[in-house]
């Protein structure tokens, strides 16, 4: 029968049809189908009956007297004695500390790798005196990894073997590290922001 296939497809939409919640296209399909299908028409009548009973059975009652006043009294109490809040939202703390630490570590790693590379390639030598102000000269060496360490790790050998092309790409990787650190910080900021707003 041509009815059955349509019935199965359209019946789940019958109550949306009755509530006028359907798109025009399917609404018309149902209207056309109801013209020819006795079963669905009957089902529709039953649905409409249930709809009407539901609307009428679930009518609203009056709310208890004094409810508004009670709510306002309680909200006034809270306004006068606001509850104490933690300075930092405890539930957000692990996330904040975690991503904060990742940011700092990547940043450090980036700087170390970069300075190590510049040191190895000798690019930094002529610039060192110019970049580092005189009062930082005594500590300038602290954050640098000694070229000896890099060489002992075989870094220079592999850099030389890879040729200038790769050296150039390698010099970009720490920038990637810094970029990653920035992304981590961007992730962290909303956490802090929510904390600031919550307090």
């Amino acid at each position: 029968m041509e009815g059955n296939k349509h019935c199965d497809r359209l019946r789940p939409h019958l109550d949306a049809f009755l509530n006028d919640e359907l798109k025009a296209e399917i609404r018309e399909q149902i209207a056309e189908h109801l013209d020819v299908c006795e079963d669905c028409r009957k089902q529709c009548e039953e649905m409409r009956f249930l709809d009407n009973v539901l609307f009428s059975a679930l009518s609203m009652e009056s709310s208890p007297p004094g409810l508004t006043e009670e709510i306002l009294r309680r909200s006034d109490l809270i306004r006068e004695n606001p509850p104490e809040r933690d300075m930092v939202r405890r539930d957000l703390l692990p996330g904040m500390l975690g991503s904060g630490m990742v940011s700092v570590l990547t940043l450090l790693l980036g700087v170390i790798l970069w300075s190590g590379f510049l040191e190895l390639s000798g690019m930094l030598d002529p610039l060192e005196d110019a970049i580092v102000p005189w009062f930082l000269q005594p500590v300038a060496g602290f954050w640098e990894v000694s070229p000896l360490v890099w060489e002992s790790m075989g870094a220079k050998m592999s850099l030389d073997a890879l040729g200038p092309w790769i050296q150039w790409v390698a010099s970009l990787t720490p920038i990637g590290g810094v970029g990653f650190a920035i992304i981590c910080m961007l992730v962290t900021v909303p956490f802090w922001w929510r904390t600031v707003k919550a307090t």
Partner: protein
Amino acid sequence: MERELERAKNGDPEAFSDIVRSHQHRVYNLALKMLRDPDEAKDATQDIFIKIHSSLKNFRHSSRLPTWVYRVATNHLLDQLRRAKRERTRRINQPWKEVAHIRNDPRAEDPAVVVNQEEVRQIVREAVDELPDLYRTVIVLHYQQGLSYQEIAEILGVSARTVGTRIHRAKARLRSWLDPIWRGGKIDGGK
């Protein structure tokens, strides 16, 4: 409305009390149908508005105020039901089955008259009370609060299609419960 909301967000008690006055009736009725107990509904309504009071400053204008109020309310009520369910086991018997003594299949008579029979409405109310929480939520929001599928969808954070499916399933369940009563009534009535 918008100005009132801004004033309430800035802590103006008068503006907040306007919000309470214009919404408490609907929130109370929603709570009553969801919790099925007038005392619990009253307490829950208070708690919901206290929640609204304290989170008003986080309200963003991406949704309308009534939608947001409904959202806070339904979340609170569903939470409360979930917690209550963990604490006590659910009633197993369905008392509305015993109340069922309609003489005839009401649908056979003039629907307009039948719908207004308190007896019929009472049975339907009790059947709605027995629906699973998620189904009861959409049924109450639609039939009691008069909200459209789209409005309900925004409140619950689902698609309008999902709301339609839930209402459809809830009604199918109601019919499967009510049909035997109505049919059975007809046989017993001997009309």
